[in-house]
């Protein structure tokens, strides 16, 4: 208007700041990992080391829960979908067939180690010895009544009502959401075993498997079980803050936070490195990485990432993940796994 040069300068400045869109942009040049919050600490450590040691970019890791991860993973093949989904349980047949329906027919499975599911409370809270029966009675939505065949809504409000000898405090358990593999394994290993101790429920397993599972694996929803997000650090923090609450999470988080929380014994066994490794601790499960074969060789760095992931310095008995609380595989199993990955062996579609 009265000053043309000012106008011109403004224009040039706008152009200089214009986002560089269009063809100059590269495609996705990093590995994209989703999945379990239990495996998240391991996945991020491997990703970070990989990013530092190699010339590739650091993979992007998101904590979505095992089930949430599989849903993203199985949505299809292509740059918009994750290359890897890690999981704190084995992939389900239903998930594998969902994958296949979307064209994800070839999936490579890598078992990276074991992990226990712990039932922990704050260091300042009393030590507790639990049985799986206690856990079932405290957390199931419906529990068997006095008469065989009778099912009543869970009446227990305090631990001492579940079994005399347990602390006289309100039942308050922080646990993972339905997207979580830890939750799936917890209901299948801890709760289901606890409910099998009722004879008539056990007998249902053959006659009415669906009803049996529903009785054994449904968590209560009256507020005693508090659902958290896919963030296990948060559970540890909340436990430290609230000595009355228990939390359900992976052993590795206990291992990294032993100065804040402690685990209850389950059926008399304390979750320790050795007790989980040799199978004495009853609630333990393997951890996995699942990789889309179609993406190998197409996404920069994915092949090298798999080498780093299965390398002895990562998963071996002295590997750096062991420092992070991973319970390593037996040497032979790790080596055969490494060989299977480098040969890109895929899971049979029938599932298991």
């Amino acid at each position, binding site marked *: 208007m009265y000053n043309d040069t000012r106008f011109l300068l403004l224009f*040039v400045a706008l*152009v*200089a700041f214009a986002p*560089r869109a*269009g063809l100059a942009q590269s495609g996705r040049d990093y590995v994209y990992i989703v999945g379990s919050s239990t495996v998240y600490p391991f996945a991020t450590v491997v990703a970070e080391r990989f990013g530092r040691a190699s010339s590739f970019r650091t993979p992007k890791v998101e904590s979505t829960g095992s089930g949430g991860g599989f849903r993203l993973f199985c949505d299809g093949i292509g740059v918009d979908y994750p290359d890897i989904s890690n999981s704190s349980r084995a992939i389900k047949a239903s998930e594998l067939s969902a994958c296949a329906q979307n064209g994800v027919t070839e999936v490579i499975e890598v078992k990276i180690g074991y992990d226990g599911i712990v039932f922990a409370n704050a260091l300042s809270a009393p030590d507790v010895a639990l049985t799986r029966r206690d856990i079932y009675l405290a957390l199931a939505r419906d529990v068997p009544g006095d008469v065989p065949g009778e099912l009543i809504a869970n009446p227990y409000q305090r631990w001492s009502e579940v079994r005399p000898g347990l602390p006289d405090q309100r039942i308050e358990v922080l646990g993972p959401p339905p997207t979580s593999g830890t939750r799936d394994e917890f209901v299948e290993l801890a709760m289901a075993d606890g409910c099998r101790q009722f004879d008539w429920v056990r007998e249902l397993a053959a006659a009415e498997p669906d009803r049996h599972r529903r009785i054994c694996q449904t968590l209560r929803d009256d507020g005693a079980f508090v659902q*958290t997000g*896919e963030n296990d650090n948060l559970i540890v923090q909340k436990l430290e803050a609230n000595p009355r609450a228990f939390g359900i999470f992976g052993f590795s988080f206990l291992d990294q936070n032993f100065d804040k929380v402690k685990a209850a014994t389950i059926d008399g066994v304390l979750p320790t490195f050795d007790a989980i490794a040799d199978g004495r601790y009853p609630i333990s499960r393997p951890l996995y990485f699942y990789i889309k074969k179609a993406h190998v060789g197409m996404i920069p760095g994915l092949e090298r990432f798999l080498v780093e992931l299965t390398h002895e310095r990562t998963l071996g008995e002295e590997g750096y993940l062991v420092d992070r609380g991973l319970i390593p595989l037996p040497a032979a199993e790790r080596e055969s796994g490494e060989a299977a990955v480098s040969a890109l062996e895929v899971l049979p579609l029938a599932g298991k």
Partner: protein
Amino acid sequence: MDLTSILLLLAGLAVGAFLFGRSRAQALGGGVGAARNLHSLPDYYGYFAALCAVLPPLMVLTLWAAFEERVVLALLANGLPDHLQALSPGQLDLFLNSVRNAASAASVPADPVLAAATDEYLSLGRSSRWLLSGLAVVLGAGGVAAAWRSIHPAFRARNRVETAIRWFLIAASGVAVLTTVGILLAVSFEALRFFRDVSLSEFLFGTTWSPQAAIRDDQIGSAGRFGMLPLLSGTLLIAVIAMAVAIPVGILSAMYTAEYASTRVRALARPVLEILAGIPTVVYGFFAVLMVAPWIRTIGESLGLNVAAESALAAGLVMGFMIVPLVSSLSDEAIRAVPASIREGAEALGATRSEIALDIVLPAAMPGIVGGILLAVSRAIGETMIVVMAAGLAANLSFNPLESVTTVTVQITTLLVGDQEFDSARTLAAFALGLVLFIITMLLNVVGLGYVRRYRERYE
């Protein structure tokens, strides 16, 4: 030719068109200084020409930038060898991604097929850019030609330019309305999907919150309970505690700065409050977790009280201080708006300062202060980070400030962080909560703002 150069080209075009239009007008008007023969100042003819020259290419450019990548990739895919054409869409997508990566890397890929495709991609990209530049120049020239034909001494160039600017201004104002509508539409759309699964009455009046819906058919999960009353009560409890801090401290400090403080003290006290207002909420949250919660716990235990470490009290107290500046600045404004004549009248009758403040000024300023308080309540209800970090997750229906409660915003965050699919009642519940939050705060805001405005008008 990259986008930046094309934009520079357009800028050059604009300047050229401007100079051209202006000189054309000047020539028509009979040389420099002959503006009186023209309808508008010569510059406006320049601006008009520049607009004619730049707007059409700019529109094409925007569309081009939006679709270019897709079109180029589709063209590339069509020209690929047969064995690649036979790939599934996903695999093709991966191949194209490698092409794009190879194109942005300096080296030539080893695989000959990939190398050929990369070359093709780059050359397609180049042609696309040349085509775009050509189109921009042609359109720009066309615009200039059109301007040339319209420019004559009686042409209302200024009005044309001003109309164009006016439309831009109206569009800009529309963005605000669009945002409001967008929030309502987006959030209610997802919330409606939630209410297909869960009845409205359960959501509004249920007393249990336990959002655990199964995510797979073969997963055993309960249907979940979606009663929001415990969340609402928790939100209210924390908001009430916050207001119990913010109202007295805020109003009294406003009284001090408005009624007592000398200009110098005022210049010292206001910044303190302003800094409090400027601290990000995540910092308040960190402070609440790290310092306030443990203090309250220790104090409570020394009194023999059973205090939850994530007590509503800790979150509420810190939130209260966060809100103090809001209450205090709105109250300060209201108090200072009370006409001096009222105050002087009271002073002449021998009232003390506190009597003036409490009996005269406060009632007169009350509507403004109430409006400010309503806005503060709305802020307390919608505050997220402090409660995410310092409040609990357990949905207790409790009004005990020493208990741990959860809030609407905490649950929205817990449900949505990490989850990415909007197809289970669990995730959709977050949007239903968001809608409730939006409606409650909107009502508070509208009423609060109404008070503040009506009060302003009364004394203006």
